């Protein structure tokens, strides 16, 4: 790589105030989709990157999630706007080759099964349209043309045609394979080591790894490193994967998202272990069916009663699933922040530390874009979108009073 490609912040004085002649060394904690993306773009800009993970790539929520790159499901406000940026980033990365073959455009169908759900879907459609999103009303007959076999209870639907699909672990693998970041598996970081108010490295077991800057993108494992108190909440989601309904490509022409999922996302339903139903047709021809929303659960076990309840909902929405077999059930743990918004930005108290976590169920959609922006922050550049709503600054006082 030619030195001319290095940004000005990498040589000379970088934003962390260090004069150096060697490239910036960044320790990235967490090799999920966010950490992998940050590492990729940091390395591309000439930084030296060490990725550290308590387990290995995609070991957390990245490897246990559906593949929705979906604006359709986002809460109105900054999340909807940022999801549009993030989806556009996927499109760009697909076009420039980085995500070639891994990101596919596909419609999301928001489906309602009762009059109350139809109202909710209509309201959400209006919010999406106001944010600039294409929204198409689909009547039952047209929907049955698109998705034959759909359940009799489905009464209204909206199509969001510009959404997409990507598997978190495949994106992570591609980002890592195309960057020169070094990966350390089974390397749990116990502490960010500070010197004179600035990060100077991380502790991995009994070893000190020096670094000029640190990115914390470790999902639920981030909180103990940040010193900001209990700002993260685990939210378990149970899912099931079926056998193949088709041998080539997705078995149905779109991602089915029940209004119950929207209700959970918009904060209308607050009870524990609520089911927000999505039926995700995978590129393999299999279905991924999810999922529960279980606050304060960080284990990866699944229980038959919850999986059976998810499947009953799924059969009501799409009865042809009765012909499928469940190959496995599994659970992922989403990392939600206390106020429900992701946490992306400079650490309020530790210089040289950037945080990117708390994406809850939106990490696959937002992850690559947020990782790239975390890289920009680490390089002293302005983010590509307004991230002020996500700033860790909002949790600063917690520590001051703690």
């Amino acid at each position, binding site marked *: 790589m030619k030195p001319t490609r290095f940004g000005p912040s990498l040589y000379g004085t970088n934003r962390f105030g260090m004069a150096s002649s060697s490239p910036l060394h960044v320790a990235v904690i967490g090799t999920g989709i966010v950490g992998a993306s940050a590492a990729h773009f940091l390395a591309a800009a000439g930084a030296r990157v060490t990725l550290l993970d308590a387990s*290995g790539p995609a070991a957390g929520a990245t490897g246990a999630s559906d593949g929705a790159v979906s604006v359709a499901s986002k809460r109105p406000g900054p999340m909807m706007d940022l999801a549009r940026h993030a989806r556009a980033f996927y499109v760009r990365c697909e076009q420039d080759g980085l995500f070639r073959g891994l990101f596919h455009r596909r419609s999301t169908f928001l489906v309602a099964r009762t009059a109350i759900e139809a109202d909710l879907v209509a309201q959400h459609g209006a919010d999406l349209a106001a944010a600039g999103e294409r929204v198409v009303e689909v009547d039952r007959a047209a929907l049955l043309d698109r998705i034959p076999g759909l359940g009799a209870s489905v009464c209204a639907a909206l199509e969001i045609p510009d959404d997409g699909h990507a598997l978190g672990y495949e994106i992570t693998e591609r980002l890592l394979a195309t960057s020169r970041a070094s990966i350390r598996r089974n390397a749990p970081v116990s502490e960010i080591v500070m010197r004179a108010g600035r990060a100077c490295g991380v502790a991995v077991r009994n070893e000190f790894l020096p670094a000029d800057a640190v990115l914390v993108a470790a999902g639920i494992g981030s909180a103990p490193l940040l010193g900001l108190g209990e700002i993260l909440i685990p939210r378990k989601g149970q899912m099931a994967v079926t056998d193949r309904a088709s041998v080539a490509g997705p078995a149905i022409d779109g991602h089915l998202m029940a209004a119950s999922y929207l209700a959970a996302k918009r904060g209308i339903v607050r009870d524990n272990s609520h089911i927000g139903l999505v039926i995700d047709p995978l590129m393999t021809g299999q279905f991924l069916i999810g999922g529960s929303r279980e606050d304060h659960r960080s284990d990866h076990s699944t*229980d*038959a009663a919850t999986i059976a309840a998810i499947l009953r909902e799924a*059969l009501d929405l799409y009865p042809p699933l009765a012909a499928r077999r*469940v*190959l496995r*059930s599994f659970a992922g743990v989403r990392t939600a922040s206390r106020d429900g918004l992701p946490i992306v930005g400079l650490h309020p108290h530790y210089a040289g530390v950037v945080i990117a976590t708390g994406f809850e169920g939106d990490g696959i959609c937002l992850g690559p874009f947020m990782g790239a922006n975390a890289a920009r922050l680490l390089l002293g550049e302005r983010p590509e979108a307004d991230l002020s709503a996500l700033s860790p600054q909002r949790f600063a006082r917690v520590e001051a009073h703690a």
Partner: protein
Amino acid sequence: MREAPILVVGAGPAGASAAATIAEAGLPVLLIEQRDQLGGAIHRQPAAGNEEHVWRPARHRRNWAALTARLQASAERIEIRTETIFLGVDSEGRFLFDDRHEACVFARRPRAAIIAVGAIETIRPFPGWELPGVMTAGGAQVLLKETGRPPEGPILLAGGGPLLPALAAQLAKAGNPPVAVLERGRPWNAPAALARLALSWAPMSEAAAYAAALAASRVPYRCGAVVTQAEPDGDGLKVSIRVGETQEPLLVRHLLIHDGIAPNRTGIPLPDPDGAVPILLAGDGREALGADAAILDGRRAAMQVLARLGHAERGAPSDERGLQRARDFQATLARALQAEPIVPPPETLICRCEGRSHADLAALAPDASAREIRLMGRFGLGACQGRFCGPMIAALRGQPLPTASPPRWPLRPVSVAALARLTIDETE
């Protein structure tokens, strides 16, 4: 509230022995069997409408007759559910079963559980092992027991271990002796182990009977011979055989392969004899020691459960001695038949569920995590969840295929409709 039963999963020799022992002590038993009849692989009975044609050693017939008589004598305390698949244990401690007869999944919380699901067959992969016409010797033996008819056309048996001559003798007696039995080991190179084996009366008299059957049908038993490749050839297979430095082709209709057995542990809960609900493993599913030892091991597990539940039964020292003899015999046999591993060529299929090759496996980082092997390698993700490819992957990587913790359910594919109809027994 009625008394919760002791769960016994699997009605082969270990499960039948455990169920009978517990019922004889006066406790209720729920005996789960995936097939429509009891017996497991070793005592598989002819399918309905077929007559028993398969020759078996008299000892095995006597053992199974004795076990079925004991189960019948305690029948009022044993609830038997056939055509019912054990799906594993969920996070709430519920044991899950797929009742294929009723097409619904049911959950039970037993007082204790003895899991006796037997062994899985292992093979050493070579290009073409997945072709039609190739199957495992154990699978072929079960088919023979059910149908009473051997496959038609020339049959080749290859791999390693005592199942090969046993099946060859049964095929010969059923009217279609194999063209050859290829044993990859060279027992004559291990005279000390051979001498020790000769002292084991029961298995050796069985082996002598097989040898006599093979001699009568002039079936060659070739040691140090391995199959390196199978290719389609018309209706059959062209099999490449290597003996020492020489390669020779052989045209057959069926290639039956086998390289020993290993405990079936995929998705099986970990043993927990001291837990609130004691969980014990028994038989070949605990330690692959064969059919005779499985009967002892089923009784041993039952005694342990009875003692744990306050019934003053204790394990018999003679059972432990019998298990130790079986362990010594298996270890000696393994020494006699040991053969160097062969690294298969890169294109060799390893996971047939997802179509993953040895090259795909080799591309994984040496310290790849369980998640990477599963998701990025796509190993252990298919219908078998690693039950069949797991031992191959372990042998090729030199380390076990990481398992999910806790074990995942369902451990067999289950109908979406059946699982949605889950019934939970709340009298539990």
